[in-house]
């Protein structure tokens, strides 16, 4: 991966959701979905975000796309601060940043045909004259491997994989440079997952796209990503280039890596089993979020948060008791 200027930069971003308020309106129960997270994504890079359900990966994606507004922190796109934009400024970004949704069943308007879904973005932004929109929609459908005669159909006439392709085509319709892929394959069959992942990889090369790729399975992430961040309860535990992941530093990443199935029955592997459940992300105490389940935890872990340290080039981890890289 050549060093390039960052396209997207996230600086100490935080977002919490208030679950309960007291009578006076003071929040009594707060879920910290994203807690002081920073990272940057270079042009043309695929940045993977992994973590268990509820760890805040999707929230990060939605914050970048402006679907939520952050409590604090900063989001830069191409050097420009896009943290707090008004509706008009946000709309002007639609030709730059797009989003692929997790659930292909709820992300398509059931009352609109494929043609309407795909032509609308182009028409309302006035990207092309009316006469050329038809050709463009055909090309989009071709890009995602759907026949052009399907464009008069409604979403309920398609399978899950086909719907996800329509969702991808919609994200591509405005020629964006950056796409947040929010678990685009987790709702699909394993046999279809590979197709969609390969499609995303091909499209990236064809259009020079940059992705943030969110997933909860490491095998899916490794397939596509150049760099991976491992999240746990609103925090990034470890950031590493794809290759560096096979040499995990943070105990949580170690446990996660050991859980990937290996398709070889004879190969011995050490499985690290975590005890206990994921603790509640509501009103967390000080210290490392993972301390309560960590096999390497020491007393200081629950007192203060471990800072991120660089162990190898581009390989950061936050842990007090991490073994130095060998």
């Amino acid at each position: 991966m050549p060093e390039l200027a960052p396209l997207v930069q996230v600086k100490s971003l935080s977002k919490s959701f208030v679950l309960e308020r007291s009578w006076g309106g003071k929040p009594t129960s707060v879920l910290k979905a994203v807690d002081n997270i920073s990272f940057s994504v270079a042009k043309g890079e695929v940045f993977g975000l992994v973590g268990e359900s509820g760890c805040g990966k999707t929230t990060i994606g939605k914050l970048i796309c402006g679907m939520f507004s952050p409590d604090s922190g900063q989001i830069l796109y191409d050097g420009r601060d896009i943290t707090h934009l008004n509706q008009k400024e946000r709309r002007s970004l639609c030709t730059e940043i797009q989003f692929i949704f997790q659930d292909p069943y709820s992300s398509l308007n059931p009352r609109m045909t494929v043609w309407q879904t795909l032509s609308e973005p182009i028409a309302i932004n006035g990207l092309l004259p009316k006469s050329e929109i038809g050709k463009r929609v055909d090309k989009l459908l071709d890009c995602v491997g759907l026949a052009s005669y399907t464009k008069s159909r409604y979403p309920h006439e398609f399978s899950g994989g086909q719907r996800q392709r329509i969702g991808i085509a919609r994200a591509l319709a405005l020629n964006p440079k950056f796409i947040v892929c929010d678990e685009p394959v987790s709702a699909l069959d394993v046999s279809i997952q590979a197709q969609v992942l390969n499609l995303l990889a091909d499209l990236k090369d064809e259009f020079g796209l940059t992705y943030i790729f969110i997933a909860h399975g490491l095998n899916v992430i490794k397939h596509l990503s150049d760099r991976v961040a491992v999240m746990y309860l609103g925090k990034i535990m470890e950031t590493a280039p794809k290759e560096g992941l096979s040499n995990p530093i943070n105990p949580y990443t170690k446990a996660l890596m050991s859980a990937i199935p290996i398709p070889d029955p004879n190969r011995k592997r050490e499985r690290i089993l975590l005890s206990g459940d994921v603790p509640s992300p509501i009103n967390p105490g000080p210290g490392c979020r993972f301390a309560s389940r960590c096999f390497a935890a020491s007393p200081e872990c629950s007192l203060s948060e471990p800072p991120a340290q660089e162990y190898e080039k581009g390989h950061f981890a936050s842990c007090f008791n991490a073994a130095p890289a060998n």
Partner: protein
Amino acid sequence: MSDSIKKSSPAADAWHVLKQSKSAMLGLIIIVFLFLLALGGKLILPHDPYIGSMAENFQPPSAAHWMGTDELGRDILSRIIDGTRISLRVGIVSVLAALVVGTALGATAAYYGKRVDMIIMRFMDMMLAIPDILLAIAIMAALGPGIDKAIIAISFVTIPQYARIVRGCVLSVKESDYIAAARLVGNKDWRIIARHILPNVASAIIVRSTLGISSAILDAAALGFLGLGVQPPYAEWGTMLGSGRLYIFNAPYIVVFPGLAITITVLAFNLFGDGLRDALDPKGKIR
């Protein structure tokens, strides 16, 4: 199975289900018949609905007067046919007016939420706290009698019903991913409401307004009966009931036939509305 090859749109699917409901089809046939009567009734009137002869008053049903004559000797059948136009007009126009205003208010309240929602919906609650017919009577008392004023009164008092339904539906739709996607590709708020949200809540609105037509016709009849709605000599069914009630023991046919006309019309719209609800309900989809 051959149907699955045919093009399937939401509207075509709904019609397919609707066709299989006998009661809804019966309702639809009656409604179409009523519309034909309203539009072309003038051509088939057996007698003049407004001029009778006093010599022929209080005649029971006979070959000359199928439904008898009223206290002024006017032919009741002719008056009922003429009244179809008035009743349908009141029903449809007042529902349309209430629907447009109610949808705009409900969608705005739900889409923008917070304070906007608070102000609009509390105002609707205030209107709902007063019984419909009482509020309508109060408005009629202020505006004076007449068919147009009856329409205004009825549509005004039914606005909250539509506003509430639309608000509920919009709330359930507006958080879906496809609305977020619509915003992300650069749609403006009004376009999201009009092109993405409303088509997805249309089925509930259509069902409610079909049923609303029947209650509007009933309200109009009630106002007419109380002497506040359409004024004599116009042959509105409720007005006919009101002026005929004095003779109910001597000449029951004076009130029976207008009453039947109201009942059948209301029933037809209710049957059709129920069928529509089943047909448009996504959960009850029969393939």
